């Protein structure tokens, strides 16, 4: 299997500086792949996919009925990031999460950032994620966004940009850990010699963080992962995390509020829960406070949260900062709260609530990417250059009807990485979702994160709900040697 004839075209390629010339950090891997016997890589790819099926790592696509079990496609060629470059990204992510947490806390308290005129007031009053019920609350250690999955992309020059901050219930980390397990089996030799930074301790780091933010005075907190249940598309991840962390996996009907604590129904009666890592949205948490028809949460949970007998991660109300309009102001937040310049740039963003920006967006729909402010998963967005004139004119209508709800950005020519197609390699666009665990005084950043790849030729949409796949992501220390393995 060779990379002969592999084209990087005009894009930044994650593994090759130019055709035929692997980046230093990728040299060992490229040699190993080229030295495999004919069909060897394909065999490994298929074995990995079978392993995923047998482990039950399946994914349900929304809207399709039961019985549609499929795995997220996994590409066997890893994406490699050089260690020094990663260090900058890591520092940038820590900085960003720290500032965002300060912002959320400020919004639910004195709103100094607004008083000082740095961000406009409508920013939070119009945000769907703002919860008046959280005004004045003090979650332990001042942490609101405990777990974040920030999406990064590279442009033509290889510069990393922040595409969006997923602060509510970001998913995908289980794939990072599983992809790594599969890759260790497939390329043990390269792995060993490439000095890949480890990801295996993520569940421990996660559990330590959750213990750290437990309610005051609890020495050995009982931690639960709250899942909507087995029919949720990310159920496998919820179960996987609970299993790896040693937490209880609970569903709404397992919980009951006893007047003071949120408890789980166990075979020995009610047992108090101290920390809940929830994988359901705010509006489903507590039917007494939010949606009355929710069966996914537990009546009384918000009382326990307000009274401090229960920590909820991420905290209710965190969504106020998970909004693509708020996103545009993060560099200002970093300056305001930390007195620093942002280490990771934003993608230049036009806020459509601004008349001028709206006109600009409407005039340039064929060049821009337009996104709804508070959706995730790639739903409801328009990729101008790929859309038909009809789609664009229909989108323009929704845009005019509710400009606050939209932002636009230039269409970046995302970086690419080689994927295995039938019998050769082709470049496909990728993004990167690192995971950050924030505990107040410090953060842990999972080295690398989830590389999502748009498997359709030329496509820019990497979301797993829309046909994207994943790759293992190696953060490699030291330029690896060039000798063959």
């Amino acid at each position: 299997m060779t990379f002969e004839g592999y084209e990087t075209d005009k894009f930044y390629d994650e593994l090759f500086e130019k055709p035929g010339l692997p980046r230093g950090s990728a040299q060992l891997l490229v040699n190993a792949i080229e030295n495999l016997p004919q069909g060897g890589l394909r065999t490994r790819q298929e074995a990995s996919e079978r392993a995923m099926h047998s482990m039950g790592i399946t994914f349900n696509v929304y809207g399709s009925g039961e019985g549609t079990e499929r795995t997220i496609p996994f590409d066997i060629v890893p994406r490699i990031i050089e260690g020094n470059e990663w260090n900058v990204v890591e520092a940038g992510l820590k900085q960003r999460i720290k500032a965002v947490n300060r912002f959320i806390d400020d919004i639910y308290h004195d709103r100094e950032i607004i008083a000082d005129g740095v961000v406009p007031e409508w920013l939070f009053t119009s945000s769907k994620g703002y919860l008046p019920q959280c005004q004045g609350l003090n979650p332990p250690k001042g942490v609101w966004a405990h777990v974040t999955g920030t999406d990064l992309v590279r442009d033509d020059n290889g510069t990393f940009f922040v595409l969006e901050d997923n602060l509510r219930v970001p998913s995908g980390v289980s794939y990072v850990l599983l992809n790594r397990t599969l890759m260790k089996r497939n390329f043990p030799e390269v792995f060993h010699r490439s000095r890949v930074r480890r990801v295996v301790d993520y569940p421990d780091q996660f559990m330590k963080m959750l213990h750290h933010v437990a309610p005051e005075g609890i020495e050995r907190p009982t931690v639960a992962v709250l899942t909507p249940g087995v029919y949720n598309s990310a159920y496998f991840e919820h179960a996987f995390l609970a299993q790896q962390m040693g937490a209880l996996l609970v569903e709404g009907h397992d919980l009951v509020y006893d007047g003071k604590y949120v408890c789980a129904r166990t075979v020995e009666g009610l047992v108090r829960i101290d920390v809940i890592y929830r994988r359901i949205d705010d509006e489903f948490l507590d039917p007494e406070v939010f949606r009355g028809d929710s069966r996914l949460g537990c009546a009384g949970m918000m009382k326990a949260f307000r009274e401090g007998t229960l920590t909820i991660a991420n905290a209710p109300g965190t969504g106020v900062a998970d909004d693509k309009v708020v996103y545009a102001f993060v560099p200002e937040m970093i300056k305001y709260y930390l007195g620093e310049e942002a280490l990771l740039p934003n993608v230049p963003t036009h806020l459509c609530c601004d008349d001028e920006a709206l006109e600009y967006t409407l005039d340039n729909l064929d060049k821009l990417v337009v996104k709804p402010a508070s959706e995730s998963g790639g739903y409801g967005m328009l990729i101008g250059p790929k859309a038909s004139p009809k789609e664009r004119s229909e989108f323009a209508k929704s845009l005019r009807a509710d400009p606050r709800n939209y932002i636009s950005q230039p269409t970046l020519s995302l970086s690419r990485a080689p994927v295995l197609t039938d019998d050769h390699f082709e470049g496909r666009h990728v993004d990167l979702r690192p995971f950050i665990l924030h505990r107040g005084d410090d953060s842990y950043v999972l080295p690398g994160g989830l590389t999502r790849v748009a498997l359709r030729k030329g496509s820019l949409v990497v979301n797993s709900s829309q046909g994207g796949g994943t790759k293992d992501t190696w953060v490699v220390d030291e330029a690896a040697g060039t000798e063959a393995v």
Partner: protein
Amino acid sequence: MLLSRVADNIYWMSRYIERASNIARFLEVSYLLNLDQPESAEEQWAPLIEITGDIKLFKARYGEASRENVMHFLMFNPEYPNSIACCLGTARNIAKGMRETVSNDMFREINALGKLVPAATREKANFHTKVFELCREVKRDAMLIEAMASETIERGQGYHFWRVGRYLERADKTSRLLHVKYFHLLPDLSEVGTPLDDLQWAALLESLDVRETYTRTKGLISPEKVIEMIVLDRGFPRAILFCLEAALESLYRITRDEPSRPHEILEKLCTDLKEMTAAEIIDNGMNEFIDELQIEINNVNNAIYEQFISPKAVTAGA
């Protein structure tokens, strides 16, 4: 700490796997037995449906209890909840819903086993061979899963719910097997003690994997000795008393030796059985004995639900 929902899931997952492997045993033995029938005799397939207690359902769907119909009903029927395919499918779905509790190796097996029967080809030409093969696979895989449970799960409450489920299900199925042999295969009392009768007792022992043990320890076939072995034996792992004592032991482990309602019912049942002899069971009426036994096993099942699972009971007990 074991969630009530998870305890319930473990219990039923275990029961469904045990149920499937018992039905596989019944199918396999009936088939072998029918092969040995004298040519003049009719093949007997209806009793197999009787074991499951769902004869009405079967008649409504299939009518005649022919070999193929019975095989299809018990092995493949996707709508009959006690078919092997459904039992294993249910167990698989339960396992998927508690991925965090089931060890990885066990999950892989249960996942694969749940897909085995629906994925099997069903060409007419090889139908019997295929059913036969599936029976063996189901039996073997169920034992494999059992071994994995025993080797990979710590002896906590979850493990003991698994064990209670398995042994209650097994006790129930062994009693049904006996019931059928006793009342359906030989309706004509004059045939008792004939070679055909012996053949059937032997088949019953065979389906419980205990025929050779029986011959070695008890000698020639006699109904009394067979009942001794499969009802009252405390050392044979498919005997009713063995199963009930094992379930009781696990119930005590679950509550850390505290007795409660399900313990009481089960304890009484064990004590009664220990005081009985096979001759008494036969004299007092096999039918009554088995009916009562099944009612009591069902009472234990309900008491377990009330004690550990029912949201009302669990919440009030706090």
